[in-house]
């Protein structure tokens, strides 16, 4: 990965207050096409707040977001989705009672119209789901399986599939391997590499140095709501990054 790749998403001077608490102060972030940016930081460093700003759930108190060089104001998750910014939440944000396909297309279901009435197009959902899972090489018994019947790794895969079903440009993942069995971690990391190879920019928030050093190209550390350190991955080491998390340079 080189910096000649096109800049996709840039956040400049993001600041977020919750009442008197400063969660983020003047934070900058960049991610390019086909690049994976690792974001590390201790609990309360502001990682999740930053991600929620990027996904349109929180409005920043100050600062601006640029997508492909153009400034955008995100008022809701719909706005960020429309730009191609997708979020994979730590709690996965899947409805366990619904089948895989309906989760992937939740909120954006294809419909067919009979007169003025719109009906869900289950056949299309099924076909699009199978094709999409196939593309990402995700194996499940059937797209009709309910999500609550899946393992943690499979659920994570569905969550990632969901985030990329609509031509995503940047996928933001919050602790994508935190809840997984060891053998499932590898599969999820493979999936991230597959996304990168298709030109998607990926932001991974993780505590796991293994994850960061397996899939990321660049790593940045937040400390107490500010940019603390940043480096190309090949120019740093695990020990250094762990030091950043604890606020030591």
């Amino acid at each position, binding site marked *: 990965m080189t910096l000649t790749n096109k800049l996709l998403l840039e956040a400049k001077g993001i600041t977020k207050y919750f009442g008197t608490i400063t969660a983020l102060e003047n934070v900058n972030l960049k991610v390019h096409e086909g690049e994976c940016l690792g974001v590390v930081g201790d609990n309360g460093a502001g990682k999740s707040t930053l991600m929620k700003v990027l996904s349109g759930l929180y409005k920043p108190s100050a600062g601006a977001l640029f997508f492909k060089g153009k400034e955008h104001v995100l008022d809701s998750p719909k706005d960020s989705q429309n730009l191609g910014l997708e979020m994979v939440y730590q709690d996965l*944000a899947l*409805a*366990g*009672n619904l089948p895989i396909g309906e989760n992937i297309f*939740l909120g954006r279901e294809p*419909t067919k119209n009979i007169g003025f009435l*719109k009906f*869900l197009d289950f056949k299309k959902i099924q076909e699009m789901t199978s094709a999409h899972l196939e593309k990402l090489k995700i194996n499940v018994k059937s797209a009709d399986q309910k999500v609550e019947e899946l393992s943690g790794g499979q659920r994570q895969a569905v969550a990632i599939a969901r985030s990329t079903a609509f031509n995503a440009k940047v996928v933001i993942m919050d602790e994508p391997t935190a809840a997984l069995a060891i053998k499932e971690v590898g599969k999820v990391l493979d999936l991230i590499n597959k996304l990168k190879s298709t030109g998607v920019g990926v932001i991974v928030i993780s505590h796991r140095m293994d994850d960061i050093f397996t899939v990321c190209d660049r790593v940045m550390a937040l400390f107490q709501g500010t940019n603390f350190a940043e480096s190309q991955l090949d120019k740093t080491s695990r020990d250094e990054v762990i030091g950043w998390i604890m606020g030591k340079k």
Partner: protein
Amino acid sequence: MKSLVGLWEKNKMDDKEKKQDSLYVKLIPYFEKYGILLLLVIMILVMHILQPDVFLSWRNVTNVFKQISWQSMLALGVFMVIVTAGIDLSVGSIMMLSLMILAIVAKAGAPWFIVVLVPLFAGFLCGLINGLGITLLRMPHPFIMTLGTLYIFRGTGNLISGGTPISGFTDEVRYLGHGRIDLTWLGLEKSQYLPVSLVLIAVVYFVFWVFLNHSRTGKWIYAIGGNPSAARASGINVNKILIIVYSLCGFLSGIGALILAGRTDSGYPNAGLQSELDAIAACIIGGASFFGGRGTVLGVFAGVMIMGILRNGLNLMDVSSFWQQVLIGSIIVLAVYVDVLRRDFGTRK
């Protein structure tokens, strides 16, 4: 030590795989879907055996449907609310208030089509108030808002009517609750008619089945019950959907009021007293989960039927209504226990 744990894990997984392949496990989804209908059929058979001359007679069967007609509307409304993991305790009061408004408008001499529309509108409005209260006032749980409106709506109904019954409606107003579809052209006797309320139940249940299973909004209602934060993160306007759900629940209670007006030919202060509990019971017996996201329209119908048949059958056998209460209560507890077992089994931990 490590290898031992590994071995144990492996055994556990083997067991799981074996379990998944057994016939028993394959049958579970069908049992989940149609088990409640099986129970209904068994009940009908038992009642038939116990009361062979009366129970399945035309007169008694239509009677059961007439009796459950307005309850089935309340149950369907409450069901939608329960799917969102909410609850509506106010449906009985909404129905009573709508009925009282209907009665007053009818007594004031309004034309029948106005009298018929008024309870539907009133019910919808009451539901809208519930929905707005739950979302805009950010009540910690729908239980609280609808407990409040349970008192408010019934109180209002008594205030506007002076707490006294108002009787006497025209045939047009009574048609949905009291009308008969003549079947003599099929060669049947005059007494073998089809109650209009039965047709109404079928139509309303079909429309709501289509709505819940084949529309986006319906799918989102299930999604909100399954995981509200997932729904929100998917860009679904959860509050808007909840307001729609509570409004529709109120609207269905309004239909219930219209049916009841037809059946009883009067608006009376005790109308629908405690019927919210019957509605909730029917949903739970029909397999709707209090945790939200689970249950079918067919199941609710079966739940309503089971309660109706139980009451009817026990009445036929002259069993005291106290026993009816004990039996219905037991069925609720049993039905929910089955739900608990199913969750244990069906969900990966």
